[in-house]
Each structure stands twice: as C-alpha cells, then as structure tokens.
C-alpha cells in the first residue's frame, strides 16, 4: 500500500510539473481571451442556478416544491429541460417586468417607481405619477410584450393616464397635446376636480419624425429639463449616455488669470457676479475651450433635434445631427430631420448595439465579469440573432457559463493539477488491480475509452450532477484514504469544466 501511495505521489508530482495538457488538444477553443486568461469559471449546481435565476428574474426565492421537482428532474437527468421551462415561466411573471423597470429607471437616472404590489391610490400622487406615465408604461411594455429593445428609442406608441391629484409633472395629456390632438379625447373630471379620463392609447406613424420612444415622453423631458442657455444639451448628453454609453461630464476650464478660485468655480473668468452677461461667458469660455469642444461637437448638433420642444413636445420636427467619433476614430456625422430620424440612426450604430449589450451584461452577469474581444462579438451576435428582443436576449444571457458561475474563478492549470493530485490517490490502489493509470491521459491509452473511464470515476465518487457526495462508492469505507468534502467539491468542479470544454 505504501509503495502505491509513493507511486501515486511521484506521479502526481510528475503531472503537476511536467504533464502536457493533452486533454485540451482536441477540445474546441472557446475564445482567445478565455484561452489567454486560462481561467475556469466555477459552475453553480442546478439548485444554486435555480435560486440565482429566481432572484434575478423574479426577486423571490424558489419554492420548496420547485426544489423538489428539480431533484426529481435531476434523478431523471432532465434538469436542463426543467430549468429552461423555469426561465420561460419566470420571464412571464409581473415581478420580472417590474425588476426590469427598476433597472431601466436607474439607467435613465430616474427616481425608482412604486413597488409592484403598491396599489394605485390618490394617497400618494407623486408615486402614482411615477408608475403610470408614458415612459414607465413603455419600459414595462418592452418587457411584457418581449418587444425589440430598439423600441425603447424608436417606439411610436404611448399610453396616456390621467394625472392623479397634484403632481410636479405637466402630465402626458398636455405633453402630447400638440402632436396627438386628433387622437386625444376630452378630459373628464369628478366633483373634486380630479381627472377621471380613462387611460388612452395613442400611436404615431412609423416614419413620424417628431416621436422617438422614451426620449419623447413627459417624464424624460421633466428629468432632463432644458433652458435657453442649455439648449437641450442635457437631453443630448442623456441620449449619448444611455444609448451609446458615452458618459460626458461637464468640464470647468482652467483659469487663465490669478482669479479667486471660489469665484472661478461659480462664474469662470468673472470677478463680479453682476457685470458680465451670461451669453458672453458661454461664448468666450465654455464655447471655445478645447475641453468643452470634446463634448459640444456631439451635444450641440443633437440638441438641435429638440429645438422646438422645451417642456412639451413640438408639433414640428427639428433637424439636427448625430455626430461623434466612432471606436475606430472615424467621424460619424449623420444629418437627422427630427427626433424620430435621430433615434433610428442611433439604432443603426455599432456602438449602440455594443452599449445595449453591455447594459444587459451588467444587469444579468455583472460589470466585474469582463466582456471583450471574441466574447463581446459573440454576445452581440446573439443580440442580433434574437432580433434584439428583450426577453429572448435575457434567456440567452441566463444560459451562459458566466451566469451559471458561482462568481468564483480558478486558474485552469491549478484546477487540473489539484484534480490530478487527488485522482492519483485512486490510481495508487487501482493500478494493482490492473486498472489503467487515471492520471495518464487518455486513460487506458485510447481517447475512445477515455470518456467512459471518466464517467466511471465521476459516478464512483458521487460527482455526477444527479448525485450527492454521500452516494459515492469509492474509495471503499475501509480505505485508509477518504477524500475530504473540499477534494470532492474540487473534483466535481473539474468534471463539470471538462464537460463544458468538450
């Protein structure tokens, strides 16, 4: 026995130091980044996946019955089918819709909405107006009806709800009064003066240049107000940030003279608070400073698309342009005849697709998980493949290795070496019984029989997906070596990894 153990150890040392990664040679390469990093994502168990899925999509824990059915599915090796069904089921829940609405509200830097279970009452008109306005209804429709994500920017349909009580918003009825006068019904009020008009659906022609999804909603205009000085640049900046992931921050120019730094922060290059007229300031400083130009060449042309719409949507489209430098450094300069045209042009940009994919990635996978190179291209291809449909793309994301991950990673070499060290302990005994060396791959000298050996080892150690560690039959109970729970856990991860790599 001792001799065998020594032999096992010697073999382990041999493999940990000099064993070529033979098992990788015939495996398809996943992508360059993955290969370079040689990082193994530690996979979740099916139970862990169900919990993660449920919390991600519904915000609630799986029920005991769901775990029970999963256990049954595992025993029949039907867990894949069961979990796919769960994805569909969870995506159809109202909670998923509200969770996505929350994510979108954060993306648009809006105050979060009311809770989905909160009743729509007159007690809290502020919260009520957060919930039932054309923008939030658009957010929810996008998910509820599995619409193309582009509709967020190019949508032409809105729901108009009456304003409940006092609200800071002017309300959607007034907001669309000029563009949808022919569609809007006369409002009605009760004896207390509260509007009782039933909710109404309005729709514009697909070619309508004045309308552009979330951007032409009362709530967007309220959130990104404009002034005569700002000239809609704030709105343009929000569009660049949300749809092209170009987050611009205001820059204060360096003082050119020895001015009081406090005044300099308030009114650049102005010693008195009353002397200089503001327009001159913007022309002289903010308009001509090189730091400012970096953003204003993008903001000003786009801002012009909002020109006639300050607080409510104008009945006339206003021309402008989509101008920016793409990721290759080439200048994009597209003339746009109105907001509808601008929205369509944005959705045609490569930067748009990448940006939207990144939003989803950050929501469902996590911003700490890198998305670049081939993997990024692969995910964008999937986004296009599902025609940018919201829930279809989410279904894809929750099926990726990255979603199936515990968040724990391990170097591939470490995982292999540690696993072979553990396996060498099995070989220590089994070699005497005429079984092949499990650490020499392909096991038994043939790739054809190699997988069968791996399956046998996996099952004997209780590592198969439908097994518990307690179900292992090897090593026998009277064996001197008994694997620890950490060793079994480690091997289980390795076996999963090998299957994934196949």
């Amino acid at each position: 026995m001792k001799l065998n153990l020594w032999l096992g150890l010697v073999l382990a040392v041999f493999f940990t130091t000099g064993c070529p990664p033979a098992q990788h040679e015939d495996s398809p390469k996943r992508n360059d980044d993955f290969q370079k990093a040689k990082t193994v994502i530690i996979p979740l168990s099916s139970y862990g996946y169900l919990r993660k899925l449920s919390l991600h999509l519904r915000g609630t824990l799986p029920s005991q019955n769901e775990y029970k059915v999963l256990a049954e599915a595992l025993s029949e090796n039907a867990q894949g089918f069961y979990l796919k069904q769960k994805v569909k089921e969870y995506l159809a829940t109202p909670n998923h819709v509200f969770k996505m609405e929350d994510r979108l509200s954060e993306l648009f830097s809006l105050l979060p909405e009311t809770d989905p279970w909160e009743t729509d009452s007159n007690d809290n008109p502020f919260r009520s107006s957060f919930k039932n306005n054309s923008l939030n209804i658009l957010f929810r429709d996008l998910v509820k009806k599995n619409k193309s994500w582009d509709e967020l920017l190019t949508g032409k349909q809105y729901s108009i709800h009456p304003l409940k009580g006092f609200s800071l918003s002017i309300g959607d009825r007034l907001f669309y009064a000029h563009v949808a006068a022919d569609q809007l019904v006369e409002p009605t009020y009760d004896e207390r003066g509260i509007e009782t008009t039933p909710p109404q659906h309005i729709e514009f022609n697909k070619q309508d240049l004045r309308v552009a999804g979330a951007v032409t909603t009362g709530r967007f205009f309220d959130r990104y107000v404009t002034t005569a000085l700002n000239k809609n640049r704030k709105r343009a900046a929000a569009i660049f940030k949300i749809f092209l992931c170009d987050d611009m921050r205001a820059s204060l120019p360096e003082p050119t003279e020895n001015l009081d730094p406090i005044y300099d922060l308030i009114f650049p290059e102005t010693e008195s608070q009353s002397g200089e007229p503001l327009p001159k300031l913007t022309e002289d400083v903010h308009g001509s400073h090189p730091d400012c130009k970096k953003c204003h060449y993008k903001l000003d042309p786009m801002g012009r698309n909002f020109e006639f719409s300050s607080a409510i949507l104008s009945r006339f489209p206003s021309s402008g342009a989509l101008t920016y430098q793409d990721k290759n450094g080439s200048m994009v300069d597209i003339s746009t005849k109105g907001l509808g045209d601008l929205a369509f042009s944005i959705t045609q940009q490569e930067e748009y697709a990448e940006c939207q994919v990144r939003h989803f990635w950050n929501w469902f996978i996590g911003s700490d998980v890198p998305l670049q190179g081939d993997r990024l291209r692969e995910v964008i291809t999937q986004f296009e493949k599902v025609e940018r449909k919201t829930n279809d793309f989410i279904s894809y994301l929750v099926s990726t290795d990255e979603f199936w991950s515990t968040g724990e990673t391990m170097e591939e070499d470490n995982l292999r070496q540690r696993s072979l060290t553990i396996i060498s302990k099995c070989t220590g005994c089994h070699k005497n019984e005429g079984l092949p060396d499990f650490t020499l791959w392909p096991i038994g000298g043939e790739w054809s029989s190699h997988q069968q050996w791996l399956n046998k080892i996996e099952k004997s150690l209780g590592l198969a997906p439908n097994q518990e560690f307690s179900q292992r039959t090897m090593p026998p109970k009277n064996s001197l070596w008994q694997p620890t729970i950490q060793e079994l856990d480690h091997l289980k991860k390795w076996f999963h990894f090998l299957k994934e790599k196949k």
Partner: protein
Amino acid sequence: MIIQTPKKLLIICVLLPLAFVLPQVAEARFDSHQKRYMSNKDYASVFRQLFPLSTGSNDYKVKDCLKTDTTIQSLIGYSSPAFGEPIYSTPSPLFVRWYGNCVQRLIQEEFGKIKERGYSKKHLQNYFSHSFLQGLRVEQWELQKWYSWTKTKQLQAITEIVTHLIGPWPVLRDLGWKQEESDYIEKLLESMSTESSSSAWKALQSALLKVMMREEFILY
C-alpha cells in the same frame, strides 16, 4: 421582542456590519463585484414571500419593511438619480441595521399572527416542511423549553429552516460554504446556546433571525 439585550444588539449593530464589510469587496448595487447580493426591491419581495401574514399588519414599522421607501433606497443599493451611481460602495453598517431591524420585526409579527390563527401549520410551512410538522403539536412549542428538545430534534428544526430559507445543501456550497453541511447546522445551533431557557417557539424565531442574518441568505 426577540432581541432586547445589549449583547445581541452589539451582534446586530457592530459584528454583522463588520462581517458584511470586511470579508469581501462588494458594491452596494449588490450585483457587480463577484458576490451578488439581493438588490433593490428583492428585499421587500422576499420579505413578502416569507412573511405573507405581515403584509396585512397595521404596524407602520412593519409596513415600512415591506415596501421600497425612498428613505432606504440608497441603503439597499439604488443608484442615486443625481449621480447615476450608488451612494454606498459596499453594504454599509446602516444597511445591516435596517435589515436586521426589519427581519426581527417581521418574524415577531408573523409568528404573532400565526399564533392568532391557532399556530397555523399552513403558514409555518414557509419555514418547515409538511413532513416535519406532521404529528407535531405546535401550540406546545410555547410551553416547551428549547433545551428540553433533543439535540437531534434541534438540529432537524434548524436544518429545516436553512433548507427553506437558503436552499438545499448544494446551494450552500455554491454560496461559498466549503465545509460539511452538518458543520453549518452545528454552528448555528451553537450560536443558539443563549436560547436554552427560552421556549422552543421563541428559540425557533431566533433561529430564523440567525439564518436570515447570514450572508448566504442575501447572496445569489
């Protein structure tokens, strides 16, 4: 109150915040730094799922825990609309204080309502399986001392709570518990040594609180 003594308050207010903050780096969005925490409305959703009777409570403190009020939005990881980023970069001690207080209130409220309904086994099934409760006279739990339960029964009850709140054993492993399942349950039982003179009814509420205050409960 389940927790009244300063010692226990110390655990809730000082030790647990440290437990959240020190062992890992996590962003308060609770989804973007390796460890994924429940986020935003998940807390209210999960509370509603586990404490359904409390949703009808008249106690405003209980009601506040079941909704995403603007006052706690930054604590639970919402981005600030002004900055576009969360205010807290890690789950803060304030979060743990809010969370601990809410869990404590909700357990107390829920168990009070279960008692009002004649120790309704139907509602206890949020924490214990039907098979565990079968044949048990739950109303006796208030009269029985926790220490009078055999260790096997105590372990079984805690296992039930862990399974219902966190999930089956593989979930615990996924969430980072690298030792045996029994170690987890044993450790929880050990932490309940102060409950020995409490009634089983109270002790089980305390066990529930301890499980919900575990990091694993809010991870996914």
